[in-house]
């Protein structure tokens, strides 16, 4: 899908249900044009993974996902040899062919198990590669990715270099829990996604919960922003705003007063201590139904 400008990218993303802000649209546009990977950082739940999914829907490419965790290694991320098959091949084909024949045979692509990264590189169709939560891995894993990110190729000692025939769009997400290596950042375009402004969050909520009346949506977003300003262990994310909007619809609530809030509080905060804190701070502010909100 040829996307000629930033505005087109933004519209395309909006068309599949992701409301991107200017920087996000611009970086997505640059990623496609320049063929560079994108590193998206930001607090949990602001739509980093969603951006990759939306890009795959908007461009019509398949999404290949690698979920990172501590202890992830090459065998699970890149490729692995199918040892069982190789052993069986040796034992089965012992009689026919000489030693050379067997040796060449067992290290061919037939015996190679491809994992997500390899799948993305060797795919005949262009894909979107999502490397999710890369800050959960360690520096050694990042070092392994460097060749892939800069040249889109993987080197297998026995087979040689596998180069990408189609340029994948690579998106790396990070929850900013640790500093990533310089070498990794150097190879990527950087995007910081933060909690959105009031107007945009309202648009997002209304997009995903269209039946919600506008006044209620505004109130909801204002309360969520109030909650985010508090010092919580886990501030509510955009996904939780949307969940709350849907909950309110189901509850048939018309306004967010203290009672509605206390009943549905656990949708947006997920820690016991946080619940106590917001019950005390925000619950009090909501008690007065006549108070005019700014």
């Amino acid at each position, binding site marked *: 899908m040829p996307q000629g400008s930033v505005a087109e990218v933004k519209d395309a993303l909006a068309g599949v249900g992701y409301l991107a802000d200017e*920087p996000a649209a611009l970086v997505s546009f640059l990623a496609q044009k*320049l063929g560079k990977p994108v590193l998206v950082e930001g607090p949990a739940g602001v739509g980093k993974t969603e951006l990759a999914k939306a890009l795959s829907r908007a461009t019509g490419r398949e999404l290949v996902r690698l979920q990172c965790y501590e202890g992830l290694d090459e065998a699970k991320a890149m490729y692995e040899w199918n040892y*069982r098959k190789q*052993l069986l091949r*040796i034992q089965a084909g012992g009689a026919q062919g000489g030693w050379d024949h067997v040796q060449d045979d067992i290290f061919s692509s037939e015996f190679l198990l491809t994992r997500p990264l390899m799948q993305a590189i060797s795919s005949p169709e262009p894909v979107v590669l999502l490397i999710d939560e890369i800050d959960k891995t360690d520096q050694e894993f990042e070092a392994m990715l460097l060749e892939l990110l800069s040249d889109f190729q993987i080197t297998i000692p026995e087979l040689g270099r596998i180069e990408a025939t189609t340029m994948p769009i690579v998106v790396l997400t990070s929850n900013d829990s640790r500093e990533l290596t310089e070498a990794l950042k150097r190879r990527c375009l950087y995007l910081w996604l933060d909690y959105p402004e009031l107007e945009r969050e309202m648009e997002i909520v209304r997009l995903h919960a269209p039946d919600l009346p506008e006044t209620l949506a505004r109130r909801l977003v204002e309360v969520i922003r109030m909650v985010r300003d508090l010092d919580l262990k886990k501030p509510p994310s955009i996904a939780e705003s949307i969940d709350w909007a849907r909950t309110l619809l189901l509850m048939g609530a018309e306004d967010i007063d203290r009672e509605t809030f206390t009943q549905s509080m656990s949708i947006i905060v997920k820690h016991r201590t946080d619940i106590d804190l917001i019950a005390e701070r925000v619950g009090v502010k909501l008690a007065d139904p006549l108070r005019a909100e700014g």
Partner: protein
Amino acid sequence: MPTPYGPKADAGPPGLAAKLLGFCEELRGEGVAVGTSEMLDAFAALSEVDWTRREDFREALAATIAKSQDDRRVFELLFERYFFRTAEAEAVQRGVTEHAEGAPPAGDGERFDMSELSEAIREAMQAGDEDQMRDLARLAIAAFGRGEGSGVVGVDVQRIRRTLGLTAGQQPPAEDGSERPPIDRDQLTGFERHLRRELERDLIERTETLPPSRPLAELDRALPTSPTQDLAAVHRAVSQMKRRLATLGHEQRGRKKGQMVDVRRTMRASLETGGVPLRLRYRPKRPRRPEIYVLCDVSTSVTSASVFFLSVLHALHDSFRKLRSFVFIERISEVTDVFEHERDFAAVAQKISSEGGVADVSGYTDYGRVWLEFLEEISEDLDPRSTVIVLGDARTNGREPHAEVFARIAEKAGRLFWLNPEPKLYWNYGDSVMSAYERHCDGAFECWTTKHLENFVNVVAGAKPAAE
């Protein structure tokens, strides 16, 4: 680079490429690592966007040059200054002024109603409307700025602000009696920035020269005011420490004892012997992440050192997962949570100093009491794998040092290190009881620069200690 006493000697070679290179130079001067490959990416990115849209131009540059939130902050400030000044320099060169282009912004000569202007500015600040604030800033300068200006931009900004009656915080009610919303400090700073820019622009027009470019560090950055080194250097030293500490475990633990067979690697190896597993391969012992406990003295006797130590703590939290950190003066307070929630150093430093809870009546360190508390409350968690690092000067203000309690802590922990911000010469002078503690430590080092930190890392990792 411009001298502090006058404008740049010449504008430099023309063209956008040269301007961008100059911008990157300035960024490097402020500590943002911009490499050649990033500049090439920036040029590539710029060739894809529309330069007349300032937003796109800025974002394209930022995506390729500023790769973290800290860098982005510096980038924003420098971008405003650099491209503003560049445009102004061009204008000055060509002799273009605003007045030549159309009606001056002062309007048609009506006297300005100050309260109206003030109200309009308040509204603009609340709404965060940058364009409106810029126009109102020009109006304000037209009304009060010209003719009475002192020529010093900072002073004039404050004077205009005061004349308009704008202060942060709660506001007195309006003339018609209605409540005014309180003004946020940040909003006010935003408006002051507009005032400053317009004043500078005015000054440039009048004098037809550029005021000297001051280094950013004096103006807007909020970094720890440590005279010795900056945060980045500390981070680097600590990440070295992490790698050394992580691999230390290998030599000390036996290779062959009690290891699990790694089936996958054994089968792989068996290919060499025709499918018969002649040689067993073992699962490599993952070096267990070291558990680190850091105790940091934050009393007044070590103030500038404690900023350094806090930045060390901050960097350590970034690198190590299982780290528990404590600050102490007379009592211990665990600050692990503060570091887990905040990655921004300034916010962390502020939080720790405000929520201390560690000082008692006198605010002077009492090491003896600190050890007692530590032993009682936290030392059960210590085991032979733990490393305890104490950052302090061992000046216990004449109180009981309780060296025997410290000895018991040293026994429980696997390793115990002391980092002292004073030179070795001062140890044991006055109320410093360093010798009482030193003998129980696995190592005591002087540490107030990153070089010392690196030295500490080297020694801990088992290399030969650097010659003094």
